[in-house]
């Protein structure tokens, strides 16, 4: 569904990604793991068009999106939940959600009701400003907002970061529920157990390259790979 080949990208004069290949199957949860600073977030930012592709190719649902601007990629059905969540503080929760909704939603798209049903916590906060939410609520809103774009793939950058264990558990269940609904998910995560519990496929990244690839079951048993690439 999302195919990346020989992808190179970076910031300014420094190159971060040195030829990344990835293939994400429709309906799967794919986790991208690695130590800090190996290029995972850069990878996501390149995928969604926030960083220009220097070399290589990104194909999404048979369409070449390599050179498309960020908004066009989003309209192709790629939704992004950044590490910093980036809730619009000046907008209310309702506006944050409405903003993302398509003008002409497709059949079976995520409506406001669906999203609120999925995240009941958000319903009572609808008229609050984005800046008034707690960390957990912000994460729910960030995911809910991404869902409102009616995505074909959901890209999450460290959704558990900085959250209390009980909230992490809630997020985990929500993502599991999404997976059950058939949502394709690309997940960058530091929390190995979180990732192993959710993902079908796993790619390990080091120094801007994919160094290991396999199913989460394989990784769970490959302690050598874990300690070598993740330092666990």
């Amino acid at each position, binding site marked *: 569904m999302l195919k990346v080949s020989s992808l190179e990208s970076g910031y300014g004069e420094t190159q971060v990604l040195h030829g990344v290949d990835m293939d994400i199957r429709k309906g799967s949860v794919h986790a991208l793991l690695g130590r800090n600073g190996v290029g995972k977030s850069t990878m996501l930012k390149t995928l969604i068009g926030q960083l220009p592709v220097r070399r290589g190719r990104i194909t999404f649902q048979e369409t070449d999106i390599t050179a498309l601007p960020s*908004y066009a990629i989003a*309209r192709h059905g790629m939704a992004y939940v950044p590490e910093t969540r980036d809730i619009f503080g000046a907008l209310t929760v309702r506006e944050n959600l409405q903003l993302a909704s398509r003008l002409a939603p497709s059949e079976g798209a995520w409506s406001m009701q669906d999203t609120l049903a999925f995240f009941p916590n958000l319903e009572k906060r609808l008229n609050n400003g984005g800046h008034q939410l707690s960390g957990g609520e912000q994460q729910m809103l960030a995911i809910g907002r991404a869902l409102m774009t009616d995505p074909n793939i959901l890209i999450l950058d460290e959704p558990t970061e900085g959250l209390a264990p009980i909230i992490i558990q809630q997020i985990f269940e929500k993502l599991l529920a999404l997976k059950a609904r058939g949502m394709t998910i690309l997940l960058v995560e530091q929390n190995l157990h979180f990732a192993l519990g959710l993902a079908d496929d796993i790619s390990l990244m080091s120094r801007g390259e994919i160094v290991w690839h396999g199913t989460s079951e394989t990784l769970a048993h490959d302690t050598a790979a874990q300690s070598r690439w993740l330092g666990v």
Partner: protein
Amino acid sequence: MDLSFWILQFLNAMQYSMLLFLLSIGLTVIFGLLHFVNLAHASLYMMGAYIGISVAAMTGSFWAAFFLAPMFVTLIGAVLYFTLIDRMRTAGPMNQVLVTFGLIFVFLDLVRMGWGDIALGLDGPASLSGTTRLLGVDYPAYRLFIIALGLGVMATMWLVLARTQIGAMIRASVENTNMAAALGINVSKLFFLVFCFGCALAGLAGVAAAPILSATTTMGITILIPTLIVVVIGGLGSLEGAIVGSVIIGFMETFGAVMIPSFSAVLTYALLAVVLIWRPQGLIPARG
């Protein structure tokens, strides 16, 4: 100094505030969204006045000028956008200031070539030529029209920004351009539309001010400083800031002129200095 005197001065202050508001709002919205300090905004204001004068001379109608001049100015703005502004967006404030400062010079001489050095005037519409009785005083109808126009633009903008999808899109883009784009908002297009809207407001301010103030080749440069002061005092990029800034400056200059005339020339600068020392980001800075 009876009550009617104060009502008159209040209306004067309102009128001046609204004129400042029409100018500064375009500048501040463009800054808030594009992070672009467009000093040439003041030149577009001047173009609004001069084009308005020409349109009125050709058609014989103030209202034709009132509606057409902002459109022409928007057209000029669009050309500027595609030739300069867009490619300067990531060039940093210093370069933006310099390029648009250069544009001021260019527009200054363009106006001198096109309209000459002699100050020109524009007659307001006949329907608004007299005075109207309001709150027990006779006040120039055209000035009331300016007040109404300013308040109207203010209310419309507030409604659009606060209550509509496009308003939410603009606020979101002001706060976090990348995230807005990641949600599928065509930020470049939005930028362009907002820029054009800002230019239209500058042109509108120019043609609306022309019947009260004359059109001179230096009007752009002389209005630039008060406009920047309004925007900086209020807080760059925020609608509320532009409103508060215009009202503060409008009222302070008006009542300063009446009550402490010998200090009125420095009053604005003193306020600017105090605000920047006290709150270096302005009174109501934009989020983001």
